[in-house]
Structures are given as structure tokens and as C-alpha cells.
């Protein structure tokens, strides 16, 4: 029975990581990318927990009177605790950056944001972007939108 749960756990951990990484690659929506990152991190954390887990042992909490009982390896759990904290911090930072990007470029689409960034960098550097200025309107760099635009990006 335990091995079945173990298998589910392992498959789940690897699966979460794969789903997360795949989600990050297949999405172009900034917020979804952050979510995918969270999923991937959860998978990695679960795997780390499993690395030191024993099915026949108790939680590694030292209580008076229970000192002789076999316990789960506490090291991975401590690490995962740290990793979760770090992960939350990074995700919060990521979200704040997403908000800033949305404020500046009125979009949550990675492709649009990247294009705007490239154009802005090229312009600041005084390098003419390699695309033709006489091309169809869609190919040209768009004029910078003002912050009041409500429905900016295609994914909003």
C-alpha cells in the first residue's frame, strides 16, 4: 500500500514539475507564467521531501517522552521549509514586477512586452530597429500607450 502511495507521490512530484515547466513555456501570459513557476516549485519541493521520507516514522518534532521513536529525516523538511519561503518571496516579487509591466506597457502578453522592451532599448541606444519603417502598420513599433488605456493587451 505504501509503495502505491509512494509511486503516486513520486509521479505527482515529477508531474508537477513537468506541468510547471511546460506551462511556463507554452504560455505567453505573464501572470500564468508566475503560476506555472509556483507549480514547478511545488513539484521540486515535494520531490525533496520524498528524498528523506520514511513511511514508518513519525514527524520530526521532538516531544518529551517520544524521543526513542523513529523519525523522518528532518533535514529535507527543513530545507523545503526554506525553499517554500524563498519561493513565496520570489513569487511576490514576480507579481510586483508583473504589475509594473502592466502599468508601463498596458499588456500582460510576453511577446508584446518583449517587443516594446526591445524597441525602447534600441531607441535609447540610438540604434535604428532592424525592421522596415515602411512596412505594414502591424510590423512597425507601436506608439507608446498611455496608462489610462483600459483594454490594452490581448490577454487582459
Amino acid at each position, binding site marked *: 500500500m505504501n509503495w502505491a502511495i509512494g509511486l503516486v507521490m513520486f509521479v505527482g512530484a515529477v508531474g508537477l514539475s513537468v506541468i510547471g*515547466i511546460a506551462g*511556463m*513555456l507554452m504560455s*505567453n501570459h505573464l501572470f500564468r507564467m508566475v503560476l506555472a513557476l509556483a507549480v514547478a516549485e511545488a513539484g521540486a519541493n515535494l520531490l525533496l521531501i520524498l528524498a528523506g521520507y520514511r513511511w514508518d516514522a513519525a514527524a520530526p518534532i521532538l516531544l518529551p517522552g517520544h524521543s526513542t521513536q523513529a523519525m523522518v529525516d528532518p533535514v529535507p523538511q527543513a530545507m523545503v521549509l526554506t525553499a517554500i519561503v524563498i519561493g513565496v518571496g520570489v513569487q511576490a516579487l514576480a507579481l510586483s514586477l508583473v504589475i509594473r509591466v502592466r502599468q508601463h506597457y498596458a499588456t500582460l502578453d*510576453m*511577446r508584446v512586452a*518583449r517587443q516594446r522592451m*526591445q524597441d525602447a532599448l534600441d531607441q535609447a541606444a540610438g540604434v535604428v530597429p532592424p525592421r522596415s519603417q515602411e512596412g505594414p502598420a502591424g510590423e512597425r513599433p507601436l506608439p507608446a500607450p498611455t496608462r489610462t488605456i483600459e483594454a490594452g493587451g490581448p490577454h487582459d
Partner: protein
Amino acid sequence: MIGALDMLLLAALAAIPLSALFATTRSGRWLLVAAYAVQFGLLIMLQPATAAHSALSFQLLGNAVGWQMDALGWYFAVITIGSAGFAAAYAAGEWSEVNGRLGLSLRWLYAGLQINVLAMLLLLASGDFVSLFIGWELTSWAGLILMLLAGGDAIRASLRYIVYAIAGGMTVFAGLVITQAAVGSLQFDALHAAAPSLGTGRLWAIALLFILGFSVKMASMPFHLWQAPAYAYSPAPGSSFLGSISARMGLFGIALVAIKLIGLAQLDRLSLVTDLVDLRGLLTWVAVFTAILPTFVAMRQNDARLLLGWHGVGQGGYMLLGVIIADRLGSAGGLLHVFNHATYQAILLMAVFAVIHRTGTADLNRLGGLVTRMPLTFLAMLIGIIGLAGLPPMNGFVSKWMIYRALIVDGHPLLFVATVISTLGTVLSVYKLLHNTFLGQLRLEHEQIHEAPWSMTVPMLLLCVVVFVTGAAPGLVLQYVAAAQQAIGLEPVRYILGGIESPTGSLDMLWITAILFAGFGIGAVLFYLIGGRSRRVHQLDNYAGGHFLTADVRYQYSDNFYAGLMHRIRPWYRGSFEWTESALVSALGAASTLARGFFEQANPAQWVLVGTTVIMTWVMWYALG
């Protein structure tokens, strides 16, 4: 204990700040010419027969690094300091004043010249591979200073130069580290001692890398494209100095590493495909093609500086040919040609720059008829082109004769024919130079031109004396050539004051010169006594078919010179090398765009996954295999 070599290097080093300090005044510049004289004197005081060691030596990263100058380096050093001294004197007077007013940085010019001299002396005095590489790189970068000074076209040319130069330098670097891996040391002696026991693979790698690297500086084919514009567009003293000696540093490197250290016996072990072709055979053909093709490229040039620049490339082929044949006569001819070429090339470039100084152009289609306006410059150029074309009694003849002679004696008829073709091209194109500049119709706008100032003509004429004297008495130089041959382990040439003495054919230039002048004398006597019915008219006083020609009518062609010949040989000018070079640059551009595409992805994390996947696949593959 400071030795004579240290004194020389110190003097060259001390002259750099002095150059930057004094270059702006006329008297200061003459002082700098004196500084070159001092350096020359210090160099003469060195004994070329026994290698002079420098007290300067370091232990760097486990390598002993030191400097010493043997007869080979000494011979090249004489030419180096001499060229620099003449270039400095040429520019010391009016030239610098005029060009300084036009915005040329004289401080950089003179300091750059002196830096070049120091760098070359360091190279020529290298005592091991580390000091060789230090000298090599410093020389390459120092040349850039002189090339960049002119601005405009020169910048493009020098960018091209530096890419070639770095490529050459890095090839030498690769040779250096592979030598260390193979031999275990970076001392010259170590390679010399270990060369016979090295496997052919290692030996191929070492010889090829060094020779390729040095060839880039020589501008041997197929690395010849950079040199002519890079040297030609430099300011006058820079151009005459670089054109005289700079590229010869490559020859020095080849003579040192391939001939002296690896040795002829080991070089002959390097053969391809069942001994059909060997490295030396290959190099002789590279040398011959370098002598031919650039010469015919030179013939097409309409800028006098570029014409001479391309000849510089071509003449390098003769030198390489002589050194690679490496018999008694051929190698002496190759080494002697270094000196001879430096002297007449300096004259020619100085003459061309004197014309530029007066007329403001070097365009061969916009000059002509200057012989009466600048007679001394004309005389200098005449002597220079006789030297370049390899005609007696000037010194170019002697060295070329020795190379031809060696080719015939050693049984290389094809190579001989090829060099003759090259000489033909040389004769034709130097005549174009002389004709289009000094002969033919005088341009109206050049009517008021007068001779270049004495500060420019005197160095030219002094060099003419050198060209003539060493042409009539080549033994003066051949004694040092023989010492240089000995220093790189070759049999020294048997020389007499007038030339060569050998069982297969001697050459005594004293006799040849005497006969020539006797012939000239008889001709002159006949002309002035029997003929002599001539009348001077003004150059603009011209008639054609009984009709007076006004001065603005162009009746005498200089444009499209040699039209008939060019029509015949035009299909041969395919520009294959230019094409290949630009194709390579385009390919680099394409690869660069590809690399940029790699970095500028829509999804930043993509490569994390791709990288992980690839690495995992590799690991799996490794696990299975």
C-alpha cells in the same frame, strides 16, 4: 650589468616620451632624427657576430624570459632604425609644418614611429617564445597607431589590418602553446633540440601554425588583401617606414622559427600525399604567386601609394622564395632583398608623398609632366623604380639575380619562369608610375609647382646614393647577410665587394656598373656631339597636326594606361580573394545574426528547458554508450 643591447632598448624607450614632447617644433624634430642616429650608433656598436644578451630577464609563470640579438636580428634592426631615421628626417621640415596645420597629430606620429621601432627591436631581440610573442603583438598593435593617424579611408583599412593581425597573432599564440605542450618549454633551444624527435603530426602543427601566423604579417597569399591600403593611407613618414620594413617582421619570424629552430632537415620531413608535395614546395609556390598576383594588381592601381603598396606585397614574395629555397645563394638573395627593398621602397614612397605634398594628389590620372617642376624628385623616383624593377646598376638587381640564379642552379625552371612573369609586371607598372607622374603632359593647375623642400629631397637623394652604392658594391651588405645566414644555420654566401663568387656563376657589379656607365657615356657623347640639335620649349607650348593645343586640352592619355594589354589580361582579374574575404565576412554576419536570434527569444525560459533536455539526453546517451 647593463649591456650594449640594453642601452639600445633603453634609448629607444626613452625616445618615446621625447618624441611626444619635441615633435611639434622644427628643431625638436631634428633632435628626434638625431635620436635615431644615436640608436643607430648604439646598434652598430653591438657585435653582430656573437649574439648580444640583454641583462633584462625575468622568470614569468615558470618560463625564463629574456632578450638577445644575433646577426639575423641585427641585420633586420639596422634596416628598421635606418628606415625610421630617414622617415623622421623626411618629415622633420616643411612636411610636418604643413600637415600639422592640417590637423595631423605630430606628437602621435613621431611617438608612434618610435614605438614601432621599440616594438620591432624587442621582436628582433627576442630570446625565447614568450619574448617573441610579446614583440610580435606589440609590433602588430604599434603599426596600428601609424595607420590610424590619417583618418578617413585609413580607418577602414586599419580595421581590416587589425583583424588580420589579430588572426595572425592568435595563430602564433596557438603555435606557442602547442610547442610548449609538445616540447615542455618555451625556450628556443628546447624546440631546436626536440624537433628531430617530434612526430610528424606535432611538427606539422607547430610549423604550419607559426608559418601561417607570420605569413599574415608578410601578406603572403592568401592573406595579402590588407596590406596595400593599410600601409598606403598612413601619413608619409609612417607609410615609408611601414612599407620599408614592417611586413618583413614576418620574414624574420619564418627565418627564425622555421629555418633556424625547426631546421631544414625537419621541414623536409613534412610532406603530403606520398612525398608528392612537401611544405617547402608548397611555400615556394605561395611565394611565387605572392610575387606575381599583387604585382599585376599593382599595375591596375591609379593611386600611386596603392601601386607601391601592392608592389611591397609582391616583393615580399621574392624574399620568402629566397629564404624558403634556403640554399647558399637563394637565402642570401632573399635576405639581401629585404635591405634593398627597404631602400628603394622608401625612396619611391617619399617621392610620391613629395608629389602629394606639392600637388595634393596621388591620383595617377591627375598628374603628369612634373619632370621639369620637380627634377630632383624625378631623379629619385627614377633610381627607385630601377631598383624596384630589378635592373642594373641598382641594388634590386643584385638580390633578384641571386634568387634567379638559385632557382636555375637548383633546377626550378617553372618557378624561374613565374618570377620572370612577375618581373615583367613590375617593369610595366613602375613605368606607369613614372610616366603618369613625371612624364607626358603637364596639367595647367600644376604649372606653378616647384621642387619639394630640401628637408624632403635630401633624405630621398641620400637613399638614392645608398641604392646606387650597394648596387655597385653589394659586398658591403652581403657581409652582414652572410652573418645572418650563419646565425640561422645556413651556409653563408661567398661574397666579394662587387657581388658573388661561385663556381656556377659569379657576379661583379663593379664591372657591370663600369660597363654601363661607359655605355651611357658613349651614348651621351654621340648625342651631344653628333646629334644635339634640340631646342627647349615651354611645356604648355604644344602642337598637334600643326594646330596649337591650348593647355586645358587633354591630348596625352594617362587614363586607362596599357589599354591593349589590360584588354588581354582583364579576364584574369576575377577578384576571387576579395570575393572570398567578403563571403567570409558575410558568413560571420549570418552566424552573428543566428547567435543574436538565440538570445532574443520571445520566451526567456525556453533555453532552460532545452538545455536541460539536451543535457539529459546526453547523459542518457552516455549511460547507454
